[in-house]
């Protein structure tokens, strides 16, 4: 493997890890709110969260490019803007992978019997205590699914990164784009290595997730 490919791999892993961590932190309260709320905003928020599932990545990437530019809404808050930076990539990936984290969490929270929470509340557990002692452990499979899907989906991302990441080796060049470059340059051998690797990686991750979940649902 060339050193450029290794740094692309490194950037990809760093990006996927950072993104899934951030998404778990933000997605958990968001998913809990979606399950608990009776607000009329719920439907709108659900639709917003699901948007990246149907939008072409280029659309999301285009608007992000504008927002992250030095004079954009988000970029304007920094000195040089966030486009073509690792931070910009993280923001883009987080938005793009949001439904892959929020939806499994929402499903997991939804499937918790409300009676368990009521029972806990009659046993001196405050709302926060109930969340940590009942909701979290009961949605462990949901969390594992959410984390792996968020991670894997970020690894597999292409369109958004292409639009806002530039293609700076060691900074914003990720695996999917490195593959694209190899193919453009007719370097099929390298393209094979990287593509095959990603294929195998994705399969193994999904296989592990499904195996875990099947174990939990049939103890």
């Amino acid at each position, binding site marked *: 493997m060339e050193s450029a490919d290794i740094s692309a791999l490194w950037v990809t892993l760093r990006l996927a890890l950072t993104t899934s961590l951030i998404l778990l932190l933000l997605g958990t309260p968001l998913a809990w709110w979606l399950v608990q709320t009776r607000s009329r905003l719920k439907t709108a928020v659900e639709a917003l969260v699901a948007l990246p599932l149907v939008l072409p990545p280029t659309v999301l990437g285009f608007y992000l490019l504008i927002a992250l530019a030095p004079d954009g809404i988000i970029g304007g808050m920094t000195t040089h803007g966030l486009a073509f930076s690792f931070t910009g990539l993280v923001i883009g990936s987080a938005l793009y992978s949001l439904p892959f984290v929020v939806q499994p969490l929402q499903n997991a929270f939804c499937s918790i019997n409300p*009676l*368990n929470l009521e*029972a*806990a509340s009659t046993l001196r557990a405050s709302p926060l205590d109930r969340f940590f002692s009942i909701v979290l452990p009961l949605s462990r499979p949901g969390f594992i699914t959410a984390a792996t899907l968020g991670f894997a989906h970020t690894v597999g991302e292409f369109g958004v990164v292409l639009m806002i990441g530039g293609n700076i080796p060691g900074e914003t060049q990720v695996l999917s784009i490195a593959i694209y470059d190899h193919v453009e340059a007719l370097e099929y051998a390298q393209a094979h290595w990287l593509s095959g690797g990603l294929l195998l990686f994705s399969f193994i991750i999904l296989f592990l997730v499904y195996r875990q979940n099947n174990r939990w649902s049939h103890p």
Partner: protein
Amino acid sequence: MSGIEFSFELERDGFQLNAKARLPGMGITALFGASGSGKTSLLRCIAGLERAGMGRLTVNGECWQDSAKGLFIPPHQRALGYVFQEAALFPHLRVRANLEYGWRRTPKAERKGNLNHICDILGIGGLLQRYPQQLSGGERQRIALGRALLNNPRLLLMDEPMAALDRPRKAEIMPYLERLHTEADIPILYVTHDLEELARIADHLALVEKGRILKQGPLAEMFANIDLPIARDEDAGAIIKTQVTGHDDGYHLTHLHFCGGEILVSRIERAVGEPLNIRIHARDVSLALQPPGESSILNVVQAVVTEMLEQGAGRIMVRLDAGGTPLLARITHKSQSRLGLERGTPVYAQIKSVAVSI
């Protein structure tokens, strides 16, 4: 001030709860009513699981809710125990952790019961390492009861804890509930629509109908009141306080004495002098004007007709007075005419069977 005093006004999906009462601050009070009468809603209001728009609740002097003052103590800050219809055990925790859930969250100074003692009372010591999925329905309900008791409650609420159980499972739990009666020193509100069940464990009875408390009173008094809807139940009957006066080992019988006479029941393991409540179903009492001659029926009590109420379908409920103790008999309209029964008629009540409770 002792007692559970409440007044709740709650409207939910076309149902109206408008309950107001002051219930005893100790012993077991049964909340009895048909399904949909609002018993469960009332219990949930008392627990704070349901927040009534207008509500006031004081439990033995401690105010838990007063909407006039904007006071509402959330459920997790009320020292209560709640046993749901389904056990609602936490599936991810072993039995021991389930039992200790409320205990761990109780301030040390307020911890009273202890795990071993509760396990002994409920016979669950051998289940501590199991998960709820590995338990039978009856076991689960016993754990749920233990978990509620270990929460060091000042009020125990039980919502038809046996409704989801079949007959054998009920029979398995009943003795534990009866024991609760003597062991627990806190008031217990017990929701049920099973007259048999409450006759065995309750001291006090509150009738719930259409979201209101229709009437309440000591169990025996309520059971002897033939104007109440419970007198129409198949299982209607009187509850009588007796005292064990002796055993007849040859015939395997126990003598019980009450104000109106003596009653013989199958030998029970109670010491002479011990008090014992028995229940005599109205359907098991027949009436005669003369002392019955040769008969297999052992128990015949002299009484006077005090009240009669037509119950439809040719049936009449008769209230008798046997030396100050009320008895109920359900007879046919035809029998009443034939015997010419009216208020004040002296009769011989023949008791076909006696249910021994508590």
